[in-house]
C-alpha cells in the first residue's frame, strides 16, 4: 500500500511541472545555468580566468544544502508544500481519493514524497555544483582541493550527511507549517501565506519575548524561544560549522547556550509533532470541499 501511495504522490509531483519547476526544480536549473555561464566566461574572458580563486570541492558540494534553511529557500519550500497539500482541497480531489484509501497513510506519504523530492533536487544541485566547480577550476587553471583520501572522504561524508539531515529537518518543519495551514485554509494561497507567516512569526517571536522579559525583569519568557525550530536549527548549524553553540543573549546579561543534542532533540519533537498533528487533524476532518 505504502509503495503504491508513494508512486501516486510522486506522479502528482513530477506531473505538476509548473509548480515543481518554479519552486524546486529552479535550484538545480540555476546551478546548471551559473556553471554554464561561468564556463563561457572562462572561455572568453581572461580577466575572469585571472580573478577566479581556488575552491574546495568539499565546501562547494555542501553549499546547496544551506538553501532549505535560508529565508528564500524556506519560502519556496512552503509554497511547494502548500501546492501539494492545499491543492487537494482546492482541486476537490480529496473527495475522490479519500474513500479509496486510509487517511493517515495518505497524509504521511505526502510528507515522505515532499522530503524525498526536495532531497533529490538538492542532491542533483549539489552534484551539478560540485562537478561544475571542478570544470570551472579546470577552465581557469585554479586549485580544487583537497586531494582524495580516506580521511577527506570520511569527513566530507559526515559533513554532507549532517547538512543533508538539517536541510531535511528544515524541509519537514516548513512542510509541517504549510500542511497545517492547508488543513485550515483549504487553499493554496492561504496555506502558503499562513505557512510563511508562521515561519517568519516564529523567528520574529524573539523580539516580543525579549521585550517582555526585559520589562518584567525575568528571563523566563525568553526561555520559550529555546524550544522553537528556528533557534535550534541555527544552533545545530552553528555547532556544525563553528563547533560552538549559537547562544541566546539574555536581558539580564549573559548568554545561554544549548548543546547540539538538545537542539536535535527539540527539532525531532517539532518534526514528529507537526506531522502527527496534521495526521490527527486530517483523520478527523470533514472533507466538505
Amino acid at each position, binding site marked *: 500500500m505504502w509503495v503504491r*501511495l508513494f508512486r*501516486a504522490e510522486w506522479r*502528482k509531483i513530477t*506531473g*505538476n511541472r*509548473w509548480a515543481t519547476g518554479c519552486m524546486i526544480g529552479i535550484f538545480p536549473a540555476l546551478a546548471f545555468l551559473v556553471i554554464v555561464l561561468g564556463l563561457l566566461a572562462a572561455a572568453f574572458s581572461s580577466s575572469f580566468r585571472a580573478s577566479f580563486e581556488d575552491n574546495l570541492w568539499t565546501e562547494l558540494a555542501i553549499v546547496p544544502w544551506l538553501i532549505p534553511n535560508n529565508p528564500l529557500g524556506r519560502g519556496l519550500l512552503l509554497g511547494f508544500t502548500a501546492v501539494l497539500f492545499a491543492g487537494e482541497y482546492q*482541486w476537490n480531489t480529496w473527495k475522490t481519493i479519500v*474513500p*479509496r484509501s486510509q487517511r493517515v497513510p495518505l497524509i504521511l506519504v505526502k510528507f515522505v514524497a515532499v522530503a524525498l523530492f526536495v532531497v533529490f533536487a538538492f542532491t542533483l544541485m549539489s552534484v551539478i555544483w560540485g562537478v561544475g566547480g571542478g570544470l570551472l577550476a579546470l577552465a581557469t587553471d585554479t586549485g580544487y582541493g583537497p586531494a582524495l583520501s580516506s580521511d577527506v572522504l570520511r569527513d566530507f561524508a559526515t559533513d554532507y550527511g549532517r547538512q543533508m539531515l538539517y536541510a531535511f529537518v528544515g524541509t519537514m518543519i516548513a512542510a509541517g507549517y504549510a500542511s497545517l495551514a492547508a488543513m485550515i485554509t483549504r487553499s493554496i494561497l492561504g496555506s502558503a501565506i499562513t505557512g510563511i507567516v508562521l515561519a517568519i512569526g516564529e523567528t520574529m517571536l524573539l523580539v516580543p519575548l525579549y521585550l517582555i522579559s526585559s520589562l518584567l525583569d525575568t528571563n523566563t519568557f525568553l526561555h520559550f524561544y529555546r524550544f522553537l525550530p528556528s533557534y535550534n536549527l541555527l544552533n545545530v548549524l552553528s555547532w556544525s560549522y563553528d563547533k560552538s553553540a549559537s547562544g541566546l543573549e539574555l536581558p539580564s546579561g549573559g548568554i545561554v547556550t544549548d548543546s547540539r543534542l538538545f537542539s536535535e532533540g527539540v527539532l525531532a519533537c517539532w518534526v514528529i509533532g507537526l506531522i502527527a498533528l496534521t495526521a490527527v487533524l486530517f483523520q478527523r476532518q470533514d472533507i466538505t470541499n
Partner: protein
Amino acid sequence: MSNTTAIRIENLHKHFGWRKSKRVQAVKNLNLEVAAGQVYGFLGPNGAGKTTTIRVLLDLIRPSQGDVYLFGKHVQREREVLSRVGSLVEGASFYDFLSGRRNLEIFALTSNLDLPRARFDEVLKLVDMEARSVRRVKGYSTGMKQRLGIAAAMLTDPDLLILDEPANGLDPQGISEIRALVRRLADQYGKTIFLSSHQLGEVEQVCDRVAIVNKGELVREGRVADLVTAKAQFRIRANPVERAMAVIDGHWTTTPQAGSDDALLVDVADGETPLVVKRLVDNNIQVYEVSPHRQSLEDYFLSVTEGENSHVG
C-alpha cells in the same frame, strides 16, 4: 443484517456549525435501506441533504449521530468496505495538469491497485474517452470530465456505485448513454447503483426504487412504479372548464392541469369515469376528451415536497 443489503442508514443526523444558534441541520433522522443489485434514486430539492448523506456514505464527513453500513460493514469502523465502492461526488474533479489516463493511474494506485493497462483501456472505452485520455484534463469539457469521473468510479470494478448528479453537463445523447450504462451495470453486472440526479425523467426510467428527501428528512420511499401510479387520475378536456370544476368538485377532487386552459385532472377510479362524464353532460358542459393521466415522478416529487422548491437538486 444481510449482505444482500448494499446500504443501510440508521438514524442518521448531521449538523454543521458548533454554535447552537448557527447550527445547520443538514440531515435529520434518516433511515434507508438499499438492496444489492438495485438502481436506487435519491431525490430532493437543493439543500435537502442528499450530498451530505452521500458524503457520510463515503466517510468524507462524520455523522453527528447514527450509523451507516455498506454491505453489512460499518463505514467508519470497517473502512476497508469502501474498496467495494466507486463514487462520483458533485461533479468529477481531477488533477488538471495531468492527462485523463494519468489521473486514472493515480486513482488506481491510491486504491492500492496495480491495474493492467488493459483495465484502463476498458473503462475509458466504456465512457468513450479512449482517444482523448492522453490529453491534459485542463482542456476537457464538463461532459468529458463527467465521463472520466465515471471511468474512475468504475476502475476498481466496484459492487456499489454512488453517483451524485452523473448526468450534469452532458448533452442529451450523453445523458441517454449514461442511462443505458447505469441500467447495464445493474442488469448485466449486478452492480448496486445509488444515484442522485436532477433529471427526474431519467431517474424514473432508470431507477427501481427512489427515496425523496426534503429539509434533511425522508418524506417518501418506494418502488418507482408504485409512486407514479399511486393516484388514479383522469384528464378531462371540457368547456367551460371553470363550470366543469364547480360541477365535479365536492364529489371528486379536481385540479386544473398546469399548462392547459381547458383541461382538469380528476382523482377518480376507473369504474367511476362514466359517472363524471354523465354529470358534466347533464350540466350542459361540452366534453372533448377523457384520458387516463399517468402521474410522472416529477409530478409526484413536486406534490410530496409541497412545491416549496420549484427545481430539484
